[in-house]
Each structure stands twice: as C-alpha cells, then as structure tokens.
C-alpha cells in the first residue's frame, strides 16, 4: 500500500433511523479508501455524515487537527465550511450552467477573471477543456464524470468523497477515470473515500478497503488483503 503525506480522516459515527443502525469507526490516511458492502449497508449514509448533510446521533469527525463534528461537545461545522469535495452518484452537475460555470461555482471568493482561468485549467487538467461553454445535457457519460471531478477539485478540498460515480460506465472508461483519480489524489495528498459495491473497481483504485455490512465494519485493511478474502467470499 503506497501512502501519501497529509492529513488523515478519523471518524466515529453512530446513528439509528428506525430499523437501520450504523455504528462505525473509520481511519482513512491520505490515499484512496474504498468503502464496500451490499446496498443498504450504510455506505452512502457514511458519506452524507462526513459531508455534513446528515447529523449522526453520536460521533466525532476529525481531519488532521480540524474537528468537523464532535456531538459530545456540540461541534458541528456546517457543510459549506467543510473543505471537501463530494461527487454524488448522479453527479448533480448544475443543468443551467456551462462546464466552466459548474467548476467556477466552488470558487466564489476568487475574482471573476481569475476564477474562469482556474476553472478552465481544471477542465483541461481532467481532459475536457473543450466542454467549457457547453451545458451538461450535451456531455457523454465519461465527459460528465470528468467535469464533476474538475468541479470537485475547485475547492482545493482536504477530503474527497465519491459515491459510486463510475457505476454507469463501461470497463475501459472506468480504468481511464480510475487512473485519473489516482493521479489527482497523489497530487493533492488528501484522503479520498470511494463508495462502491464492485470488487473490480476497488481493485483498480483502492489503497485501503473497508467492508461494511448492516451498518458495521466487518473487515478493513490494505486493499490486497481485504479484497482477497472478499473474493473468496463472493466466488
């Protein structure tokens, strides 16, 4: 497992919603952590809590020395103040804005001209500079993923969250995007949490794997080891 220097994520999350209960402890160093498990295991809920879109009953989230959540002490940093990037499953590109507008959205405090230049540079970086003036409904699946990644990077995030963003793509495109994600994470030196239920995708991406079932961690560790045991379970 290769490691990247930088601030790691540590989180304990406890939450109960009717029948569903989640009780997990996560440690994600800089690099790519794949969170795997069957649907309904609580993977997406974990991302919502980390992003600040959902509030757990108890828990604590720290990124390096920043405390984002500490329910015992009443700390709950609002979503818009957590420096993170969240690529949602449906990507959620803003349909009424161009690619440039989408990417620039995350940099409101930067002067207009500088903002556009930076957005263009990010689009170029992920290989879709030519889409700058076009709106999302004209993009192919792979192009939309790349624009979403560029938008996520615009905030100079300290944590990246990806919720099965590649599930609709074919194998070749997935491999290309996985390579891109790897490069970006190495450049930024931040933890990236990638939710997936595909072992193949985890093999492509993960440095570390956490397996979740019914709201609890059942295995975690270096990708090779956890995936080997997962393969024997599934095959």
């Amino acid at each position: 497992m290769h490691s990247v220097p930088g601030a790691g994520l540590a989180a304990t999350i406890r939450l109960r919603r009717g029948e569903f209960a989640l009780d997990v402890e996560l440690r994600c160093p800089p690099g790519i952590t794949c969170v795997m498990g069957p649907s309904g295991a609580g993977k997406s809920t974990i991302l919502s809590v980390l992003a600040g879109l959902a509030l757990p009953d108890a828990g604590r989230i720290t990124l390096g020395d920043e405390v984002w959540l500490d329910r015992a002490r009443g700390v709950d940093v609002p979503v818009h103040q957590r420096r993170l990037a969240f690529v949602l499953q449906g990507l959620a590109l803003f349909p009424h804005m161009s690619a440039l507008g989408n990417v620039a959205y995350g940099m409101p405090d930067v002067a207009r001209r500088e903002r556009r230049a930076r957005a263009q540079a990010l689009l170029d970086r992920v290989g879709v500079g030519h889409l700058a003036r076009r709106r999302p409904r004209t993009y192919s699946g792979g192009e939309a993923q790349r624009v979403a990644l560029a938008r996520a990077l615009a905030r100079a995030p300290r944590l990246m969250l990806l919720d099965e963003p590649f599930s609709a793509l074919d194998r070749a495109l997935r491999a290309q995007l996985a390579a891109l994600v790897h490069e970006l994470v190495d450049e930024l030196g931040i933890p990236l949490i990638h939710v997936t239920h595909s072992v193949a995708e985890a093999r492509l991406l993960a440095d570390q794997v956490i397996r979740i079932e019914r709201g609890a961690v059942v295995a975690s560790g270096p990708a090779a080891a956890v995936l080997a045991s997962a393969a024997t379970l599934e095959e």
Partner: protein
Amino acid sequence: MLGSIDWAPLALSLRVASLATVVTLVIGTALALLLTWRKLPARHLIDAVISAPLVLPPTVLGYYLLVLLGRDRAIGRAWEAVFGAPIVFTFTGAVIAASVGSLPLVVRSIRLGIESVEPDLIAAARTLGARPARVVATIVLPLAAPGLVAGAMLGFARALGDYGATQMLAGARIGGTPTASIFVMDQLLANHDDQVFAMSLATTIVGVAMLYFANRLTHRLRRA
C-alpha cells in the same frame, strides 16, 4: 363602433394587475421558500391561511381587507401616516385586493417549481461551499423559473379578473374610472351592449395572449 369605446377601464385594470403581479411574485416567492422549509413551525396552518382566498367568496375576502386596512384601523392609519393617502377606495386598495386574491395561486405554482428541483443539486451546491442564501439565488430559483413564470401568469390573470374584493376595498370607481370587470357589469346594467361586448372581447384577447406567451416562455425554460 370601437371609436366610441372607453378604454380607460382596461388600461386601469392592466396597471392594477401588473403591479399586483410584481407584488405577489416577491411576496409569493418568499412564502413559497418558507413553506418548503420542513422545520417551519405550524407549516400546514400557515399554508391553509395563505390558501384561504381560494375558498372564500371574493366579497368576504374584500370585507376582511376592509376591516383590516380601514382608515380607522391600526394598519390603515399607519399607512396613511407614512404615505399621506388611505388604502381604501384608492388605486393602492385595488392592487392589494387583486394581490391577496392572486397570492395563493402564485405561492402554489412557485412552490411546485421549487419542489421540482432535484435535492442532489442542492446538496452538491452546499458541499461546494455555498451558504443557504446563495443556494437559493443560484440553484433553487433559476431552476424553479418555469414555476415562477406559471405563477406570474396565473396571478396576473386572477388579478385582471378580480371583481368582488376590488369592489369592497377600492370601490366601484378609482379616480373616476372603474376596472374592466366592474365596467362590464356597469355597462350591462345600463344596457350598453356594444360596450359590454367590446370590453369583454378586449380582456379576452389580452388574457389569451398572456397565456400564450407565458406558455411559450415556460416551454423554452424547461428545455434550456
């Protein structure tokens, strides 16, 4: 025949309805946003009160407004002290009467538009660092535009046609001129059939033209 028609009532009605549309769009957008906020206390009660003008007879609505805004009432007196003119039996009164009748239609329509915005887009904007006010201004309202246009259209149509509440609050004449709908009734009672016909036709043309252009605009916004 058209030369002898008095068009002042139609002009007055268009002025009243236009102003009422602006007023209801501003207030209606604020109320619609408030009502889509799930944590709002007594949400359903507030919703019911805003919607009340839909189920009240317009004369009853006008009566309430008269009681609430009259020259001897707190609001009416405060208004008169600030603006130097009363609300009742004035142009302002006509705009308020038309606005209150339109408001529930406008709020409903805008609310549908707001609720049709995908929650993931709002979540994405928040994770990109947008405060709630910015999310509303840059994501929610632009994407709810078809609902706003539809609301403006319904509100204008309702305001243009108001009769009962306007009669109660603003009277039958505003600066000597009746609104178009009151004019039609007056002329009918006076057996001026050509006047009734011309004004009816004119308001119909204005109303249908409004609907046509608003529909086209909504369609274009939906495709964009």
